[in-house]
């Protein structure tokens, strides 16, 4: 036996066999978890939609007990869409709320457009700096809309902008929004309800859906449609899966560690207690929640963080590869930052479900998942090189991946159909399902690649920015 053969026998074979088990095991574990999540989410969504049916939504927001909310909208160079966004917020149906739009040192006409559209007048208001933030250059109030405030400040990043908004806000609940979030008009009452039903609720989030392809007028979605590009459609499915199934499931087991910054409500005093958003953080939304969990568990204070599937926030998704790439890389960096910045939580029974289930799951499946997937791919090449490919296994693998993807997608669509039926045309549903057949080959590798680069960028110290979003405007 040549030395090469010996090496192959003693090292490569066992290596490959071990990794076959490892990869397969990982695959089975992750997908079983996804299916489990799907089942849990199914039950939860059904329960929630029944709960809503039994309530009289129309009169709910008329109660004088509806907690007032401060909406915080950080904006950076959003001249094309900012006016529309604010209009969309003005038409929300809720008894008491204020809109605080924070212009984070934009270099374009964001501020000018706002001043012109809403009759803004600069005030000499002072505020209490409860959380440190960059210098505020001016606070503007609208003479027409008494609940609109615009804050102009020196650039400091999204987290910093949110913190300045918290300083200016008057009300006990704060809602972080993106500058392009379009909310449905009854969103606030639905997402504030958990705070009214259970006083231990400290945070709540709603679904995010993709606005591309929808007809929007005066800040309201009047007609729902699918994005034109395939990339957009893939993202629609992705969001449906991750929100309706993913977040719902984690919320039920009290393990929700992400509430999207595009739409999340928090109790202001708790946020101030943990020092507000972390300046310079990439994924400030997830970072905040992780710290909130850790803090409240350390304090042994009973609390509830929940996901409400019904209220929807429509947001513009990137339909071009470059911007999508930037977004996904940023998300990956944000994820790793939030997780690795709170290492003490990992597998620590002190943090309950968060430490034992949520954190490990996200770390392995989302955080390092791309690494494992790529590794599997490399492994395939190694085995192919050594002529050890077990083709049936590979076929099975591919088949399983496709089927599981379709299963999860269809599952999410079924939830959607059972409850909200927001996609009016049957053809839309068919298109979405059809695409889930090929998503594994086209979209999945793309996102895995971006996430991989994101991991690399994180460990080589790339810092977060605003994330350029080339706005097409509504």
């Amino acid at each position, binding site marked *: 036996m040549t030395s090469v053969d010996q090496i192959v026998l003693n090292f490569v074979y066992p290596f490959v066999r071990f990794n076959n088990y490892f990869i397969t095991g990982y695959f089975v574990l992750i997908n079983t978890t996804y299916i489990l999540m799907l089942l849990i989410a199914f039950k939860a969504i059904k329960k929630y939609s029944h709960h809503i049916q*039994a*309530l009289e939504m129309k009169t709910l927001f008329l109660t004088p*007990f509806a907690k007032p909310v401060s909406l915080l909208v950080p904006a950076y160079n959003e001249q094309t869409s900012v006016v529309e966004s604010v209009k969309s917020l003005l038409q929300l149906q809720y008894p008491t709320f204020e809109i605080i739009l924070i212009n984070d040192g934009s270099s374009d006409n964001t501020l000018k457009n706002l001043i012109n559209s809403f009759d803004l007048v600069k*005030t*000499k208001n002072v505020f209490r700096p409860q959380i440190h933030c960059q210098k505020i250059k001016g606070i503007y109030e609208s003479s027409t809309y008494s609940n609109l405030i615009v804050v102009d400040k020196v650039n400091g990043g999204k987290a910093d902008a949110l913190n300045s908004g918290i300083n200016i806000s008057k009300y006990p609940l704060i809602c972080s929004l993106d500058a392009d979030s379009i909310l449905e008009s009854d969103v606030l009452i639905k997402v504030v309800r958990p705070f*009214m039903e259970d*006083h231990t609720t400290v945070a709540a989030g709603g679904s995010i859906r993709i606005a591309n392809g929808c007809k929007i007028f005066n800040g309201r979605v009047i007609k729902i449609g699918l994005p034109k590009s395939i990339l957009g459609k893939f993202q629609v499915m992705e969001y449906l899966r991750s929100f309706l199934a993913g977040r719902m499931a984690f919320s039920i087991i009290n393990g929700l560690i992400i509430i999207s910054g595009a739409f999340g409500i928090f109790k202001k005093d708790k946020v101030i207690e943990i020092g507000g958003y972390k300046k310079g953080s990439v994924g400030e939304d997830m970072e905040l929640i992780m710290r909130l969990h850790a803090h409240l568990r350390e304090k042994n204070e009973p609390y509830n963080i929940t996901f409400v599937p019904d209220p929807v926030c429509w947001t513009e998704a990137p339909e071009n590869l470059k911007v999508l790439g930037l977004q996904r890389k940023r998300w990956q960096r944000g994820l790793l930052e939030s997780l690795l910045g709170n290492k003490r939580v990992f597998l620590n029974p002190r943090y309950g479900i968060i430490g034992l289930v949520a954190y490990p799951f996200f770390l392995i499946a989302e955080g390092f998942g791309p690494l494992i997937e790529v590794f599997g791919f490399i492994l395939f090449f190694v085995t192919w090189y050594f002529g050890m490919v077990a083709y049936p296994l590979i076929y*099975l693998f591919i088949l*399983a991946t496709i089927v599981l993807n379709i299963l999860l997608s269809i599952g999410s669509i*079924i939830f959607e159909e059972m409850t909200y039926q927001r996609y009016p045309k049957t053809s839309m549903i068919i298109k979405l399902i059809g695409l889930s057949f090929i998503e594994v080959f086209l979209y999945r590798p793309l996102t895995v690649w971006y996430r991989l680069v994101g991991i690399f960028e994180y460990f080589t110290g790339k810092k977060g920015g605003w994330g350029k979003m080339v706005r097409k405007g509504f």
Partner: protein
Amino acid sequence: MDSPKNWEFDGFLKIGDSFLKLISEQVFFPFHKHFQEYPITTALIFSVFILIGITAFLLLYVIYLRLKIDRYQNLKVRKFVNWKKNILPLILDNVDISTFLKTFLKTIKKGDYEMFGEFITPYLNDTKGDSLERMIKILREIGVVKRERYHLKHSNSTWRRALAVRRLGAFKDSFSIEALVKALHDKDITVAVNAAGALLKMGDRQLLKTVISVLLRNKFITEELFAEALLKFERTLNLEIFLSQEIDRYPISSRFKIINLILQITRTESGPKLIIRLRNSKEAVGVILENEDLAEELLDEIILKYKNSEFIDLEKILSKKEKVYPVSSRIKMIDFIGYIRRVEGIPVLIDILKKSKNDEETISIIKALGNLEAAESAPLLVDHLESEHPVIRAQAAKALGVFKDEKAAKPISRLLEDRDWWCRYHAASSIHQMGEAGKICLQNFLKITKDPFAKGIITQFLSKPQ
């Protein structure tokens, strides 16, 4: 004897038998064999095939669901448009009920009854009077009410009961009262709160007492849910509930709930003009109050008229020893007096303020005095501007601002340089409210002060339009 029936049955058994044998030989045994050799792999392959099966099934299910829903929606839209044109006028017009029922039953098919229930339900919450009666009569006739009663009694699913309860409330179904009271004690809070709302819609004050006592005892029902239920009571909530003897046996947190609620609701009676609109019998008073000149003259007389047992109870309560009513309740009651503008309570409040040693209580009295615009308490409040507790200082400044008494400007202005933000804010706000004299006071202070925070808050107010 070989009857055709038996012959078929035999054949069935035979075919079934060989089919099963086929499956077990071709599928089961090989599977079993492989499973024994390579358990993991076989399990995996098997699961994949099962998954494919499930997926295919779900795919068909989705399409089926979608088509079903589409069809239902289209049908619904068509019918609703038709009913809006033909049935709604019947309901809204002053037609006598029996003729109306006859016409209605002729127009709608039996199979549409359920959909009709869906059509008419939103209108139930929007209307009152004859139209509502007509709608409820139809719903009775077509059995919708009966069906909901059935679901309430027999349904195992919580949400269906909650829904039934809500609908029965909308129907104002007095036959269901017993079942609704039972639902009030349901473990699920949605059912309980809906039951409360449903019972209250019927407008019976006896029921009101029952509802309140049950809701208060349920510790899972928050103040907000409590308020939501009570808001459904269509008549005016009067003090009598609040002051009834029964409130004593509730724990503090419950008393807090009631008081909080009544605070919110009766706060709406904040203007004499609105008293007219109340559906109670003091209409003459209302007419007087609408005429502002008359109102001023006759205000004392009116207060005397309202000064029945309600007020005297308050006095008794407030002067009782703290053992019976802990501070937290006294505070809520004080807040309440302030909010409902019981001006005759002012002397009592001033008295308590002088004696009070509790900070929380002091704060709530000061707030109430502000709400009541009790200008006579100004000297006392000025004293409190120097309290150690920042909230007391701030609230005293705020209340003094309501009185718009220029004499208070000087003492308040000391607070402009206070350490606490709210003190500075209210000081500036109050002085600002005093008109020209206030503005001058602020401007002068701005010139003298070296405190940057004071400068900031004064500038903020000076730049506001009056």
